[in-house]
């Protein structure tokens, strides 16, 4: 393996991000504005929150296809709670609190179901999570009769449109989740066990790692992250559409993980890498749109990025 490919493998994603930013500074009008930054960061926050859970799942050698559907479940459930449709709530603030906590818990429980299928019956993750990928959105649609729920509750929508120190609140949520996950992966027994399972599951089991428990927790975390992402999406739109919330996000999240340098077979994971991957994907889309290239063409570029990332990963095999 040549020195150049070592360098590219290690820093390729960062390099790509820097090049994209430089390109935009030179060619995209109004790029160096706080507004542009805010737009890109709010866009990336949703993918990234899902991407954190996905990184942990992929670190164990699994995959979670159900994230988009779990977003839809949480997103559809929340307005039903804080508008008092489902059960009477004493006042708005209790309603909002329940409307945040309960949907996230429900998404976590669906994540537990994924983990249970995978560990109890040894079903391949891609198949096990396909169950909720299909059924999850169906559940959300049945709850809402497939109708769009429009609401105007600014207090709830603070989680998407509010700002703290000038930074959109959802970006703060993303930052907290990213830091917490990075720290967990690096410093805790749980984090190391996640990587050990992805690196060699049989060896981990024989070394006393509670494989089933760790795997289940990882899917629960992915479910919780999806739930939070679902709430951010409805708060941004001030509407919940079970047909559209989180549609196709599993692919964006997996792409961010892959571009970021996490090994798709498990055993090596980087949350910050996923963040860089998500930023790259977002910025590519933004660059193309801002320069008049249609969204459809952006999809092709995204695919190209994934191929590049996988190619870089394979350089390791020599």
């Amino acid at each position, binding site marked *: 393996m040549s020195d150049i490919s070592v360098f590219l493998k290690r820093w390729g994603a960062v390099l790509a991000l820097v090049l994209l930013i430089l390109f935009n500074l030179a060619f995209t009008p109004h790029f160096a504005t706080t507004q542009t930054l805010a737009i890109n960061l709010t866009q990336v926050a949703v993918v990234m929150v899902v991407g954190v859970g996905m990184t942990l799942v992929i670190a164990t050698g699994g995959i979670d296809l159900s994230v988009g559907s779990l977003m839809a479940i949480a997103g559809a459930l929340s307005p039903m709670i804080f508008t008092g449709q489902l059960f009477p709530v004493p006042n708005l603030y209790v309603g909002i609190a329940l409307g945040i906590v309960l949907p996230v818990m429900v998404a976590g429980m669906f994540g537990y179901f994924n983990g249970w299928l995978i560990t109890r019956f040894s079903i391949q993750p891609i198949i096990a999570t396909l169950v909720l990928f299909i059924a999850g959105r169906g559940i959300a649609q049945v709850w809402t009769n497939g109708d769009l729920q429009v609401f105007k509750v600014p207090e709830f929508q603070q989680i998407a449109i509010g700002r703290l120190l000038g930074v959109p609140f959802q970006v703060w949520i993303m930052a907290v989740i990213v830091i917490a996950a990075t720290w967990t992966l690096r*410093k*805790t*027994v749980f984090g*190391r066990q996640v*990587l050990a399972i992805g690196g*060699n599951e049989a*060896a981990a*089991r024989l*070394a006393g790692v509670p494989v089933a428990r760790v795997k289940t927790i990882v899917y629960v975390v992915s479910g919780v992250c999806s739930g939070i992402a679902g709430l951010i999406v409805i708060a941004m739109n001030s509407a919940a559409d079970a047909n559209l919330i989180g549609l196709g996000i599993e692919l964006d999240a997996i792409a961010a993980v892959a571009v970021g340098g996490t090994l798709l077979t498990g*055993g090596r994971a980087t949350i910050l890498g996923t963040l860089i991957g998500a930023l790259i994907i977002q910025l590519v889309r933004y660059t193309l749109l801002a320069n008049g290239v249609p969204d459809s063409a952006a999809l092709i570029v995204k695919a190209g990025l994934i191929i590049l990332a996988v190619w870089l990963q394979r350089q390791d095999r020599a």
Partner: protein
Amino acid sequence: MDTASQVPLLSMQGIDKSFGGVPALTGASLEVAPAEVMALIGQNGAGKSTMIKILNGAVASDGGAITFAGAPWTANSPQAAQRGGISTIFQEINLIAFRSVTENIYLGREIKSRFGFLDWRAMHEGARGLLARFDVFVDVREPLMNFSTAIRQMVAIARAVSFEARLVIMDEPTSSLDEAEVQILFQTIRQLKAQGVAVVFVSHKLDELYAVCDRVTIMRDGRTVAVANMADMGKLQLVAAMLGRDLAEIRKAGSTAFGEGGQAIGGELLATSGLAVGRRVQSADIAVRSGEIVGLAGLLGSGRSETARAVFGAEPHRAGEVRFAGRKADFASPREAIAAGLGFCTEDRKIDGIVPEMSVRENMTLALLPALARSGIVDEARQAEIVKRFITEIGIKCSSPEQKIRELSGGNQQKVLLARWLCMDPKLLILDEPTRGIDVGAKAEIQRLIRSFAERGLGVLMISSELEEIVEGADRVFVLREGRTVEEFDKDQISESALMNAMAHGGDADATSPKGAAFV
């Protein structure tokens, strides 16, 4: 043989190669004559694997000249090497277990009929013909996984030969074969030779070299240190050349390094009675006392590993009882066993031992992690201290504790895995083939280590297919045959012939008693 023996088939001269600045080969050489079986030996890290990889095109050399069959050799991939006449058969046979014998032989250059369809009849015919050259007669339409390792290896060899290979490289081909299968392989090698094909044979088992090789090339530290006729080289000379040590020194130390032990054997630690596991183990009765090394001997498939796994809670048992430290201990998972004070080094490091992407530090403390943590957070200072201590104490050669374990040699990987358990301060350590695939030097170190920990009160249950290791290392031996404990030998009764007799005939009505067998 007149001019042919003067002109080598393969000549590698002055080969240099370094990986990331660390030299793996410095001016190494290898010459093979046509129809010659050349042994290639050396400790792990001597450079054998790198030589092979250069030859089959997997890696490029930094310098040196290679000629093959009179022309410069320029293969830049294993496929190109195969087409050029050099085929390699690896330790882990790289064939597709789910596909038929025929498909495996013809993979990548299938015979097609006029309309572009696969001509199965011709391929089956061809596969049968190829295997018949090695006296192997099997149903070539069956998937490869239905056959024994030996047959699979024959298929790999047949595939190599079908490429009109003039040189076949075999990288530790016997490591997963039993005695009878090894004989079949040797027969095959002789047939290859008779057909004019040269063989490079890599093995750690010295006896095998004498059985089948014409000449030997010995490597050490990336250099070729000796080339000799097999017949002119004694075993001790071979070992001395590999280790670069004085002959007398080795003679004094004996061939294994367990030394004398058994001074301070304590109370009973582990006892199983009538243990039955899966289909393989019917009734295993074994016992280990603290401070004692107990050997578990038996042929391939006699149920040794299954017994060990059941004791450790890695596999459920159907019947029988396990007692540990005086209590009933039917561990439901390795976790429970570890908590009770057991450790288990498995047979195959790659399959269920190392976590290749992780560092030496993390591999070593994988089992210890929960104990190293306060409310789930790893105490990294304590972790670093323990890792440092064991790297020194056990003599693990690594560039730093952060080096990835997959970059270490087999011997050093095994030491890390031993340390994984030793740092837990266990009461009983189960070792399944602790020195398999490890070079002579590291083997001796590991054997010494096992003994020294036993002297400090550790109970050891050691499974080994190397009789020598059991005879010299164990204080007591249990012999399993077809899933049953058939004999128990105390220290003074252990001998190779007694063990072999028990492994072959133990438990039969007319079996000789252990004492009788000792005189065979």
